[in-house]
């Protein structure tokens, strides 16, 4: 990886941490530059506006989550096991690197006006959504998951996981996130699997 790309990645990681700790609106571009030991002028060479940084961040975090799901998609196991792995990895990510999912749940979803030009529809979360599409299409084609509209399945899976991580962030859960992994995966599988003909 060349120097510029390495630097860019460092900026993105640092930004995510600061947004996660201090909040999106409270964190300024100079704040991030200072944390990076960069001059403000030099910083603007990498990102000309907070908006463009914000959009790059969602693509970045989506890529990370996408890569995680892709690793599960490429494994040779059935849909039930894949669900268990995705849930486990998702919750692990929420605990070890909360800044990725936090950014998605608290900044992206809550401030759509920042993302309306340049992140239309699902353009900026494509890498993550594509992996979910591959997981679902595969499961239905193999006869393991029930055929339905993509969005109703996606909404069930991701709505559930996202909501759960959100609750965890609010310290509402009565136990650590990991302990819920098995039950959550079971619920998702029961809801999405093919049912025997009645």
């Amino acid at each position: 990886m060349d120097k510029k790309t390495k630097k860019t990645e460092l900026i993105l990681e640092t930004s995510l941490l600061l947004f996660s700790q201090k909040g999106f609106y409270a964190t300024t571009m100079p704040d991030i530059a200072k944390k990076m030991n960069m001059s403000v002028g030099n910083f603007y060479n990498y990102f000309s506006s907070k908006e463009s940084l914000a959009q790059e961040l969602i693509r970045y975090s989506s890529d990370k989550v996408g890569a995680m799901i892709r690793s599960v998609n490429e494994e040779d196991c059935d849909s039930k096991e894949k669900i268990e792995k995705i849930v486990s990895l998702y919750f692990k990510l929420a605990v070890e690197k909360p800044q990725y999912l936090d950014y998605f749940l608290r900044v992206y979803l809550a401030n759509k006006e920042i993302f309306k030009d340049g992140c239309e529809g699902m353009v900026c979360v494509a890498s993550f959504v594509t992996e979910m599409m591959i997981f679902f299409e595969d499961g239905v084609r193999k006869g393991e998951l029930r055929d339905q509209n993509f969005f109703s399945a996606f909404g069930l899976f991701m709505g559930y996981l996202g909501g759960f991580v959100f609750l965890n962030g609010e310290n509402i859960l009565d136990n650590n996130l990991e302990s819920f992994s098995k039950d959550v995966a079971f619920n998702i599988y029961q809801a999405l699997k093919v049912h025997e003909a009645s």
Partner: protein
Amino acid sequence: MKHHNRSSIVWLQGLTCNGNSHSFLNYPSMDMFSKVFKILHHPQINTPYSLEDILKTDAKVDFLVIEGALSRSEKILSRFGYSFKDILDILSKKAKYIICAGSCASFGGIFRLQNEAKIFGALFSGKEKGGFWFNNSKVINISGCPMHPRWFVETLLKLHYGDKLSLDEYRRPKEVYSYLVHHGCLRNEYFEWKVDCKDYGEKEGCLFYEHGCQGPMTHANCNKILWNSVSSKTRVGSACFGCTEFDFPRLALYETKKHMSLPSAPYGISKRAYYSLAGVAKGFKIERLEKRLIDENN
């Protein structure tokens, strides 16, 4: 006209609708064709020899053309009083090349569905290797339902003149079957930007997502050379039904097969690549593509 240099053709029909013969009869330069080829026998057309004449002669034949699905069962398929199996056994030995005209002779096509165990193509039974023969290096498949006259004639010309003929894994000429029907479709932009067609009978919209079009997965150059010199299915707002492929006809031809509302990816394109691109394109609304192509009011 050099008669002695002409290549000879004998045409046989198995279980067929005769569509390939009629498609061949649309060839625009029949006078040129007859300078290069001599059709010794065709069951429907006024040709010099009967099938019996051909069976009894010792002379070799350059091209044995087979149209229609085949069977080794005499009860299922006989012609002119002979079991078809016997006819093919005799004539295939006399012939230099065996040309399967259409999908029925190539893969079994529609008529294979009557009895999938006993009715098949020359070398294939659907996708499975093994039809009337398990192996026969003389066979060339010009699949299609029907085949296009140019696919047929141009293949014969190559063999007649000794020009190189490359075949794909299904023994179909690559010059034709490397193209996809999708190449040259007038609705390409609608495919690119994932704009569904709203209803049949309009110039706008792609038929891939909801109406069963198999253009992006079907090997043929229909939209390059055009049918009857002027048109094609997709140019008149009809879906492509994949008639050159081994699994023609699929079930539910007018519906797009989807899993969790996701269609198959186009031929040779990975799901990851296709869904990423499709997802991005779908996120944008291109105003021009939402309007009618010919706007009468402006």
